[in-house]
């Protein structure tokens, strides 16, 4: 545990009664809490203390509004609440809750503001709090950017502590015993003589008290749950194979839909002919969509079959038809007029690099698809006035908004039920499938419709990770890195993504240079410039976003320079470490991997260290040569998140992040031909299968000041650590992903 002693108190605790609403935006709204959405439909015997805790005669419900896309968000949120509420995880139910601005994300703004995480200057702090204020005013309840833990860590514990103290107040009132003589455990208030009063019994009375504010949070040494291995709340369902996801939803009278829309992303449809589809068995209706058509049938497979029979005439894409054109747009972006921002300019890189022939290199990162294993799907029902929507999504209120737009109703008339998701990796931030479902519902009212994407449709419409390149120059002297001048040109996935929702990104996009501009080293002469590539295919946030390509660029180049300087890759990185957190992460990964030890013939190791989402993560990859193929034997990972909330889930997330980073760097890219993605299913874009998966050894550190999430930070170092290991093994420098274009893996 680091020095997380000072808890920032945020004004968010709300009363049992709804706070009066208001429409004025500004500091007043920023400082006042949002209304408690649970207050609206409480029964007489129920009490809600704040938007996260609901207690009735029948039980305790904890609301876990961050979407569970497989990262264990539901469990982590419940655990933080249970810790301070003094309940056990088997004494509660959880609910994703209804979308509400009260669940606005307090942590997401930190990532959006273009300042280094180490920058605590007034400007940086002010920008972060402005971003945070903006997200609050918009009431953005969003899951993403590894922000669930940072958003929840203080907020949920305070909410639960407030509920606990209010329940004690009710018990004191009933018994006449002073509050400070009472304690709580096991969902009960315990009187001095040992008598136990259950929370559920006290709930109705507690509702008449103003919630206790300014509660002291427990010291870490009193924690029962945080930092200890716990059984994830969804483990039983998922280990028995009985877990049900959005795609499994059953409703009386449900019909099944499939769609086909222009595979040239974003382009319209000229015409279609559904004559042969219409008469196929089980087909109920053909519904024209704004850029394609839908089939509604009595079985998903029949809908798939029929939609494949429709003949379409598609319009051309507004991006280049083939990859040569895409790469030309990337390469031509390194020019002053395309400069998005000069991000770092320290020392004098230009002069330092002027006198000698610098070391130069350029790197490429392709488009890559998200493709979580559960295909996109959404169930919807519209009765002409109100709609209900069931799907797994990371931005619930925007789902309501998008559906409302299509149906011509108010967002408040759209009831949204978030569903357990079979993965996302950024895919469930998009709205195309939701808008299509709403278009179908408009035609087919009073009928519940489940739209399921075929894998092929899902691939065709996956908005991939940004395509991009870096050009770097560097200089070494006396065995050390002296200067780096690096330019990064990528598509702005943030602008592309926000543009699809009608929003504009104000200012430069820090994701273009993520992982690069915040490199965890002090370089004497450093210049970092970002360029926005325009006119390529639409892109979106892909697990770890900009750092997934940026980490590869910078850590590959750092490695090239270290080899040119004939220094040790670990020792030189430690020498350059920008903070004590970075230094300790590097030292720990060195120790864990036994760096420097003799490995024997045909074996080698490589290292990389990247900061993303405020977390420094270092990895050592061990590889061996088997014939002429490379095998990845082991990966050692160290990451510092300030506080590990659940060590089991932490390890699982880190391992998954490494697998994600390696698998796509080795084997995956999306390429466009005639404006359409050529990869249509997992045989062409697998990621990794078990036989290629290395052993992954994980260690978490808790030296960092702030508590951070771990969903994304393990991804960026994996690709460069592997490339650097392959260089150490074979002398071949891999400067372009996927690596299987250049070498073969076992």
């Amino acid at each position, binding site marked *: 545990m680091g020095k997380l002693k000072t808890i920032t108190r945020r004004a968010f605790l709300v009363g049992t009664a709804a706070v009066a609403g208001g429409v004025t935006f500004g500091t007043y709204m920023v400082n006042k809490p949002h209304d408690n959405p649970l207050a609206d439909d409480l029964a007489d015997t129920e009490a809600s203390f704040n938007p996260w805790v609901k207690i009735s005669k029948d039980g305790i419900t904890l609301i876990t509004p961050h979407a569970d896309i497989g990262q264990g968000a539901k469990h982590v949120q419940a655990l933080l609440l249970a810790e301070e509420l003094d309940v056990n995880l088997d004494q509660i139910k959880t609910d994703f809750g209804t979308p509400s601005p009260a669940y606005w994300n307090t942590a997401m703004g930190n990532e959006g503001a273009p300042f280094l995480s180490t920058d605590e200057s007034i400007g940086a702090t002010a920008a972060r709090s402005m971003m945070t204020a903006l997200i609050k005013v918009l009431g953005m309840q969003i899951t993403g950017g590894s922000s669930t833990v940072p958003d929840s860590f203080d907020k949920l514990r305070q909410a639960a502590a407030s509920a606990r103290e209010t329940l004690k107040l009710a018990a004191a009132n009933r018994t006449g015993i002073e509050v400070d003589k009472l304690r709580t455990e096991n969902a009960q208030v315990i009187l001095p003589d040992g008598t136990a009063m259950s929370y559920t019994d006290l709930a109705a009375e507690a509702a008449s008290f103003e919630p206790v504010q300014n509660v002291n949070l427990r010291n870490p040494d009193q924690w029962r749950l945080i930092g200890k291995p716990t059984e994830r709340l969804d483990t039983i369902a998922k280990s028995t194979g*009985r877990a049900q996801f959005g795609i499994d939803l059953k409703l009386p009278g449900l019909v099944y839909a499939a769609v086909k829309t222009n595979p040239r992303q974003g382009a319209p449809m000229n015409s279609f002919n559904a004559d042969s589809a219409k008469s196929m068995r089980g087909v109920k209706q053909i519904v024209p969509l704004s850029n394609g058509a839908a089939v509604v049938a009595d079985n998903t497979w029949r809908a798939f079959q029929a939609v494949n029979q429709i003949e379409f005439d598609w319009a051309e894409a507004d991006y280049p038809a083939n990859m040569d054109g895409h790469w030309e747009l990337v390469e031509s972006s390194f020019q002053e007029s395309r400069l998005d921002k000069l991000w770092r300019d320290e020392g004098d890189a230009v002069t330092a690099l002027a006198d000698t022939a610098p070391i130069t290199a350029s790197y490429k990162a392709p488009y890559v698809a998200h493709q979580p294993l*559960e295909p996109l799907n959404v169930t919807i029902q519209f009765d002409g006035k109100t709609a209900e929507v069931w799907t797994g999504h990371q931005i619930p209120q925007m789902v309501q908004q998008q559906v409302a737009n299509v149906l011509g109703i108010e967002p408040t008339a759209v009831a949204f039920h978030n569903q357990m998701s079979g993965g996302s990796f950024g895919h469930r931030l998009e709205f195309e499938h939701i808008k299509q479902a709403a278009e179908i519902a408009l035609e087919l009212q009073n009928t519940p419709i489940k739209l399921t994407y075929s894998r092929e449709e899902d691939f065709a419409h996956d908005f991939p990770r940004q395509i991009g390149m870096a050009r770097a120059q560097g200089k070494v002297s006396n065995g050390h890195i002296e200067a780096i001048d690096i330019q990064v040109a990528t598509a702005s996935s943030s602008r592309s993504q926000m543009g699809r929702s009608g929003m504009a990104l104000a200012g430069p996009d820090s994701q273009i240079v993520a992982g690069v501009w915040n490199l965890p080293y002090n370089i004497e002469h450093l210049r970092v410039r970002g360029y926005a590539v325009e006119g390529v295919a639409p892109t979106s946030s892909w697990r770890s976003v900009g750092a997934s390509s940026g980490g590869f660029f910078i850590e590959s180049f750092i490695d090239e320079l270290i080899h040119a300087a004939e220094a040790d890759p670990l020792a030189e990185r430690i020498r350059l470490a920008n903070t004590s957190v970075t230094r300790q992460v590097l030292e720990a990964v060195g120790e864990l991997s036994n760096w420097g030890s003799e490995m024997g013939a045909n074996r080698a190791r490589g290292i990389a260290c990247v900061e993303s989402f405020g977390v420094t993560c270092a990895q050592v990859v061990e590889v061996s040569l088997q014939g002429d193929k490379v095998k990845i034997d082991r990966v050692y990972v160290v990451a510092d998140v300030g506080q590990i909330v659940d060590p089991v889930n932490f390890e699982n997330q880190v391992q998954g992040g490494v*697998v994600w980073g390696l698998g796509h760097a080795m084997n995956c890219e999306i390429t466009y031909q005639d404006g359409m993605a050529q990869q249509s299913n997992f045989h062409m874009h697998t990621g990794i*299968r078990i036989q290629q998966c290395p052993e992954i050894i994980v260690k978490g550190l808790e030296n960092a000041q702030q508590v951070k999430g771990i969903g994304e930070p393990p991804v960026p170092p994996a690709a460069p650590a592997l490339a650097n290991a392959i260089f150490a093994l074979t002398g071949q420098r891999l400067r372009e992903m996927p690596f299987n274009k250049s070498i073969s893996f076992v």
Partner: protein
Amino acid sequence: MKLTVDGQTHEIDVEPNMPLLWALRDEIGLTDPKFGCGMAQCGACTVHIDGNAVKSCVMPVSAVQGEVTTIQGLGDADALHAVQQAWLDHQVAQCGYCQAGQMMAAASFLAKNNNPSEEEIDAAMQSNLCRCGTYPRIRQAVKSAASAMREA
């Protein structure tokens, strides 16, 4: 046509070429076998036919000869199959979407070989994709389940 699933017989009226997966999911209403790819690339739809692991998304319903078992027929929370117990002990799942299929593949494989080598485990499990990357834990869980099955 008749289909026996988890010990129950269902009468269904479908095209002979409808994949077993969609007969199970949309006709009978058994949604534990998941749809992932529809072309035998991911294993999310794995069920047993007379104990053999089969990708139900490419198995025409007319070609099914024998009894179908889904994960529900393998075991449940009150009577866990050794594989489910191992998955629970190692907390394998992240999103969990692939895991019913993973467990079905493991159960059928271990029934034939309860003392597998690392290579045999990888070979048996390689057609089951996990996009969340739970492979390190799947390996551990398969080994635990194997040793439990050896002792049983």
